[in-house]
């Protein structure tokens, strides 16, 4: 069987994890891969932790949800708590470095547990709005399922009409993507 890359992304309502998931799986699909993305949804419109389950493979994918992710990304304290269950011995667990007291809840059974300062950098260097694009970059770097160029194509598809109006936005997004990937690379390299 072909390898399936499983990614769980979790954050607060406004953090845009569902967009990240959608862009990522759209991109994979556009590249002729099989992708499956399912959002987690509860009764509340706002306020809960939002989780996106993504799978990308070269062959058709089975169950929409999974027990253990290859990469689990948590962007808030509550998200850290909620996503522990998806961590197994081979999982790379990534969380935002800004989460206070994250240590208390961090999973202890993962292959790697990495903090990336995406929120901080997005605020300081880029714009808080592209925080989630940084996360996308990080996720792609961690999994290698797609190249950054492929992701850029997908961004273009989704936001192209906005980029046309404001080419700086394109630049900003590309930067965010690259910066996210870079942060991830540093972390994986154990820096």
């Amino acid at each position, binding site marked *: 069987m072909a390898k399936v890359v499983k990614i769980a992304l979790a954050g*607060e*309502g*406004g953090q845009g994890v569902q967009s990240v998931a959608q862009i990522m799986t759209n991109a994979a699909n556009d590249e002729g891969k099989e992708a499956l993305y399912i959002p987690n949804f509860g009764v509340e419109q*706002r*306020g809960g932790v939002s989780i996106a389950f993504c799978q990308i493979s070269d062959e058709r994918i089975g169950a929409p949800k999974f027990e253990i992710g290859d990469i689990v990304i948590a962007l*808030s304290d509550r998200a850290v708590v909620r996503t522990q269950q998806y961590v197994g011995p081979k999982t790379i667990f990534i969380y935002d470095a800004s989460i206070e007291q994250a240590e208390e809840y961090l999973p202890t059974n993962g292959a790697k547990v990495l903090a990336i300062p995406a929120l901080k950098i997005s605020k300081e260097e880029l714009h808080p709005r592209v925080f989630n694009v940084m996360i996308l970059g990080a996720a792609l770097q961690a999994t290698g399922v797609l190249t950054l160029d492929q992701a850029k194509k997908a961004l273009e598809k989704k936001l192209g009409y906005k980029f046309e109006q404001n080419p700086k936005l394109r630049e900003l997004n590309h930067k965010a993507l690259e910066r996210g990937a870079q942060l991830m690379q540093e972390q994986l390299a154990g820096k």
Partner: protein
Amino acid sequence: MSLKDNLITIEGPKAVWTVFPHLCKGCGLCIEKCPVRTLEWSDKLGVYGTPAPHVKEEIPCIACNMCELVCPDAAITVGKIKQAVHK
């Protein structure tokens, strides 16, 4: 410090104005309704990580109580300071 104790209290001539960030969802309804437009976003974050409001330094709160009244999360308390005390 837990969010719960992290309240913002601003004492003005007419009112002790307080927001409880652990209840504030940053909806902004209060800001829009203040008749003297003294409310604005502060740096403190509320329960959803969005900013909580506070009273501008330069415009004193007139203790009309509107912001308290319209906050759907009961995150604001306006304590009227009795005129007598201030005179």
